[in-house]
């Protein structure tokens, strides 16, 4: 069998036997379930409130309930990617086996891409489980059914989440290869995570004029989206700066794609999948580039001899 596939298989086995990975996996699944349950309960409560007031329900978009789940995939999914990326390299550095493997007829790229494949399969399985949790929550707790188009949109969001988590995996792989100790590598990766996942989106969010009043400024003066846009057109430089800060974050790019697919941004509700992807192709490309950049950086640094074990001088 190809070396690359052997390494991928070994990597996958190691993950399944590792308590740390399983802890984070359970955490992610638990959070997904919690979020879906909370959103479903809120949804049911709102539906019954509307039903009390009038007999006809407004059009409902069940995928909108996944806002919280997407938030968790943004935050904890990225952490899962960082952990997998750090530990896959750390275990080899701890035992100095990278050096040993390289005495065999195995190329450095076989090692890197084998490890990536093993982890990619694992993350793929996690995403399938998350999808199942979501479906069960929506069907049995929120009491809604999904159309075929909605299932396709959900699957595409999960595929996007997979790419997003893999991009943090490749970043963490590079950092762990580069750093001298595992704890330093993890902390540097956590700091980057903090900046990309939380701080940059937070700055953009705080600068949003609509967020200056609890419940939204424009809602408080009963302005609709068109009126809001016409007002904000006078502040294009400010809005462009705010948008630029947000766009520096790979998390925001990922969020924009998923929020469009799931209709969390109302203007995308009911839109065809093809049209959504057409409108969001730049964001998809940027997340892909982030992943490719991390992978290339890891591949490049793996050619150095002094990164094969910890505390190199």
């Amino acid at each position, binding site marked *: 069998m190809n070396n690359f596939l052997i390494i991928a298989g070994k990597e996958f086995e190691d993950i399944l036997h590792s308590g740390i990975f399983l802890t984070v996996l359970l955490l992610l699944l638990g959070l997904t379930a919690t979020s879906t349950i909370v959103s479903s309960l809120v949804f049911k409560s709102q539906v019954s409130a509307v039903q009390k007031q009038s007999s006809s329900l407004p059009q409902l978009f069940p995928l909108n309930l996944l806002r919280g789940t997407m938030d968790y995939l943004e*935050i904890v999914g990225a*952490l899962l990617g960082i952990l997998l990326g750090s530990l896959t390299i750390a275990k080899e550095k701890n035992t100095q086996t990278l050096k040993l493997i390289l005495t065999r007829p195995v190329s450095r790229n076989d090692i890197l891409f084998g490890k990536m494949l093993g982890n990619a399969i694992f993350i793929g399985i996690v995403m399938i489980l998350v999808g199942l949790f979501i479906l069960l929550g929506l069907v049995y707790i929120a009491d809604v059914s999904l159309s075929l188009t909605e299932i396709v949109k959900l699957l595409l969001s999960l595929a996007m989440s997979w790419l997003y988590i893999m991009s943090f995996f490749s970043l963490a792989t590079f950092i762990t290869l580069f750093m001298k100790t595992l704890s330093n590598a993890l902390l540097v990766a956590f700091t980057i995570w903090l*900046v990309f996942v939380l701080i940059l989106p*937070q700055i953009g969010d705080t600068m949003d*004029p609509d967020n200056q009043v609890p419940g939204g400024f424009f809602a408080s003066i009963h302005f609709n989206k068109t009126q809001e846009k016409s007002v904000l057109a006078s502040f294009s430089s*400010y809005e462009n700066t705010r948008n630029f800060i947000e766009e520096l974050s790979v998390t925001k790019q990922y969020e924009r794609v998923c929020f469009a697919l799931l209709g969390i941004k109302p203007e995308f509700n009911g839109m065809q999948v093809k049209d959504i992807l057409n409108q969001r192709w730049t964001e998809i490309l940027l997340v892909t580039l982030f992943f490719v950049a991390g992978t290339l950086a890891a591949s490049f640094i793996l050619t150095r001899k002094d990164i094969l074990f910890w505390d190199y001088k």
Partner: protein
Amino acid sequence: MKNSFTITVHEIRSLFQEKTFLLLLVVFVIMTLASTFISWSSQNTIKQVYNVAAEQMRQNGKVAPPSPFTNFPHLDLVKNMIIYVILIGGLLAIDMGYASGMRERKAGVVKLLFSRPIGRVEFLLGKLLGVSFVLAAIIFLAAIINVVSSTALVSLTVQDIINLFSFYGISLIYLLGFAFLGLSFALVKENEVVALLIPVIIWVAITFVLPELTSTLYPTGLLNPTLPIVNIPQSSTLQIMHDAVYPFSISEYYKLSAATILNINTDETVTANQPGIYYGSTIFIFMLLCLGASAAAIYSFDKSKW
């Protein structure tokens, strides 16, 4: 006691040699510097946005509501710091505690250290004092930065400055809890990744998960310092969940206490339904519990292993 003092001085010196600590510290200081400007810029823009919106309403024959932005409290300029303390400060504090607990283990000098006449309590006390001193110095630096940057934009009163320092006082208590958690797990967990991961998971739970369970807020909803309108829908399950989890939702208590001290978000729909002292006391109890965890950890610490 003399030994504790020696360990404290060593801790302070060593922390400033930790690159990851310095990296997080730089991020924290940069965001502290930026926070005032971000708020000032948002304030000016929203005032202009209101004027344009009001003009459009008048042109359409409607009556514009009075502007909610005429009198921003002076300390509204530092409201972003509430979030930066929760996010960056929390991780920085965990890193400090973790680094402090791991230092002798990683250097392999635990046996050597305890071959000297040093007790567990002295050892722990030295570590706790070192971490607390450095954290207090960082918080003091942040307060000074905010006083200087705010004074450049608005004229702060003496009361404002007292409130600002009180806010940083409660922030220090909040962050000490996380630093002590980091220290505790670094002392007892054999695996260094697990030792770091557990306090980070607790931090994620306190920061994102509990607010969702108690207030049905989206996890990223916490990132906005403007307190959201919390309106639990009419669902008995959600109400039970709220009642069960709310006493443990420390980050919400911190946000409420901070907003009250800074005199921001005074809208009655979003203010707390308990007296401010209740929230402050709960944060203090959280810190004491984490301190207790450190005390328990030092008694489980195997000084013959490393």
